[in-house]
């Protein structure tokens, strides 16, 4: 029995490596994307963003504030302007991505115990610049404010400066980022994308190879081949075995090589990793086998699934939470293995989850695998009985 299964699996591998389109999808895409996707984010965080300061006060305090901003890691003060329009024009020329306006009479007002407002302007199109510039400038401006407030408290309440500091901020907070201590963008985005890449390339690959073998030319060419004349379960499971082993090697490659090269957090334990690989690949392979029966032409799957990659990525619930999506979209997302696989993979590999933590997601993947297996077997049986002119190359 095992021998017959492996025979079909070997025939499938031979087919993969003799079809250039299959090699492109099932081998090259998985390898290229593993490096191609993380490289833009290799520096992980945004630093030294070019910014400017509009100093309308021009006093010792405003110059202190500018110096403080220059020392911030996230930004680099490129210019100091005396007019806001100059800063706006520089932003339009993409020379700077934000600026801080120090108001006129800032020092005078602060010393006179009047509140002043420091305005920070960031480019509205870039969320990362908004975060970096906003944090850097507001930290500097609030530090100036805090120093003065502590002085006011110490003088007004007649307390030592340590107590004045505590009175200004009685319970300071300390924010710790779990599982991505550097706050790196690549650590956040790439692991999820790798799972989606595995899923998409495998589904398209199965469809391009014609999982169902419904193609006229293929059937004519291989009609006498013993492998193609194997009974349905052997053909189905043998082909699945070929894809399973092939993609297990990809998961190992990502875990051992790609994660090491790009220094992503790697906390996955053996048992959850193995169980994840089995249920995830079973679900995707069976899903691919079902989908491959629907298309009459091999390229159609490629054209359609390439369009789907953007929604599939966002439906995976890692960048935009599912509870903010309309319900019907969440329902659609349950069709896709990546909806459960991406959070499960992140929990296992990035957060070091044990098998009990990820069990609910693995169950959902297992249910998908079973449903698609039944559908796949049924559709293959129907296709086997169909006339030879159904579908073509």
């Amino acid at each position, binding site marked *: 029995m095992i021998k017959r299964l492996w025979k079909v699996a070997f025939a499938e591998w031979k087919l993969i490596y003799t079809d*250039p389109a299959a090699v492109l999808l099932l081998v090259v895409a998985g390898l290229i994307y593993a490096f191609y996707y993380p490289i*833009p984010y290799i520096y992980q965080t945004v630093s030294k963003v070019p910014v400017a300061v509009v100093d309308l006060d021009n006093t010792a305090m405003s110059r202190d504030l500018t110096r403080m901003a220059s020392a911030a890691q996230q930004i680099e003060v490129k210019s100091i302007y005396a007019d806001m329009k100059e800063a706006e*024009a520089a932003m*339009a020329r993409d020379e700077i991505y934000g600026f801080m306006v120090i108001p006129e009479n800032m020092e005078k007002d602060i010393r006179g115990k009047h509140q002043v407002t420091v305005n920070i302007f960031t480019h509205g199109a870039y969320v990362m610049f908004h975060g970096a510039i906003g944090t850097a400038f507001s930290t500097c401006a609030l530090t100036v404010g805090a120093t003065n407030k502590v002085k006011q408290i110490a003088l007004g309440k007649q307390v030592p400066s340590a107590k004045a500091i*505590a009175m*200004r901020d009685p319970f300071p907070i300390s924010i710790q*980022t779990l599982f991505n201590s550097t706050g790196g963008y690549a650590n956040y985005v790439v692991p999820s994308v790798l799972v989606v890449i595995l899923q998409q390339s495998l589904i398209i690959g199965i469809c391009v190879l014609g999982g169902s073998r419904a193609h006229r030319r293929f059937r004519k060419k291989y009609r006498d081949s013993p492998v193609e004349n194997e009974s349905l379960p052997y053909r189905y499971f043998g082909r699945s075995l070929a894809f399973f082993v092939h993609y297990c090697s990809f998961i190992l490659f990502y875990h051992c090589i790609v994660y090491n090269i790009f220094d992503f957090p790697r906390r996955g334990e053996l048992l959850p990793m193995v169980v994840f690989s089995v249920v995830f690949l079973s679900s995707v392979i069976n899903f691919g086998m079902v989908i491959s029966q629907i298309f009459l032409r091999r390229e159609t799957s490629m054209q359609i699934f390439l369009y789907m990659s953007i929604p599939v990525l966002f439906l995976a619930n890692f960048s*935009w*939470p599912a509870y903010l999506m309309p319900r019907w979209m969440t329902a659609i997302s349950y069709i896709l293995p990546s909806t459960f696989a991406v959070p499960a993979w992140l929990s296992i590999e990035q957060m070091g989850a044990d098998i009990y933590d990820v069990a609910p997601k693995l169950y959902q993947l297992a249910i998908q695998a079973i449903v698609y297996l039944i559908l796949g077997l049924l559709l293959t049986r129907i296709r086997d009985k169909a006339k030879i002119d159904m579908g073509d190359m």
Partner: protein
Amino acid sequence: MVLNGLLNTIRKIYFSHNIVLWMILVILPIGVSLFTMGMFSSQIVQHVPIGIVHQDNSQLADKLESKLRSSPVLDIKMVCADMGECEHAVIRGEIQGFIVFPNDLERRTLRLEAPVIPVYSSGQNYLTNMFATKEIRSVLAAAGSEMFTAQIEDPVKVQIHSVGNLKSNYQGFLVLGLVTAIFHLAAMIVGAYVTSFPLRDHRVREMIRYAGGSRLTLWFASVFPMNIILWLESLGCYAYCHRLLAPLSFEEFVMTAAAQLFMIAACSGAGITFVGLTGVMRMATGGAGIIGSPAFAFAGQTFPVMAMPFAVRCFAFILPLTHVLMIQSTMMLGDVNMVPAWHSMEILICMAIFWNILGALLMSMRWKQFARREAKYEEASKLENAPEATA
């Protein structure tokens, strides 16, 4: 005569073909764009699930909890007995962070010992994490400033403005970028499909016959309708999506529309070039997919191009999407934006011309090669059938 040939070929390519062409030309780009818009329809991050570890059962801790509960951004889902429980909930994805109210919080606060409140957030939820921690910081800071120094105003107040995006609706702008990226990919895929299906179906001679024997007419008939259709669709989707942001002036709209037209022309030209190079639909579509699918990641909207390595910046530069997104983002800045946008527009025009000339040259050679091959096959099959007919 030429016009007749052109119209006949357009009819043959676009109106007597199977559903796949209309799927990839109309249904999927519009459908996927609308789907993506729908996904971000809530626009603002709200109800981020978090947990609380109550090590201190004091009035102050209860007061802070009730303040956090009243925030629309946060949703306190769990009150954990210890940190381990909350940490496992983060791992399971039930909550995205947790706050620890440490032992003796109230006592130490009243003694002015400034006890630190640790906030743990999951680094795997970048966007929600950013909003949640910002909100936690502002809620707790506001509560803290009310305790001892409520009568003393903060000397410096900070206001952060997002230029051209007054409501800080980054999701709205993200969707605009995604919609443009969808059409960037669509133009490559459709370009590859329209020029390669005659090769795949052995219909090159038939198509050239319809075009009155002119490969130039065949080229125009293949390329123009798809570019115009995709451009109109992208404009419609863009306008529908842009209603969430500040309205564009007429000049800004014309600029954006022109940028999209040249992007589509450049991308379809690139898709056609892939066909010219490979001669096989599967390979050309695969190539278009490998370049086009992740283009959004390189185009600088989510992660700035300036923070990427030099080689990647060069790659980003040759993607039309990067320049269109640059034009779209400069259009947000008001009346100072036309001059820099023109620079990106010039690059887009050059790209459109380059890819289309290259694609036309390569396709012309391919059509010639395939027409010859088809003629040879036809002769061979005639010879094969001749003895049977005689018999």
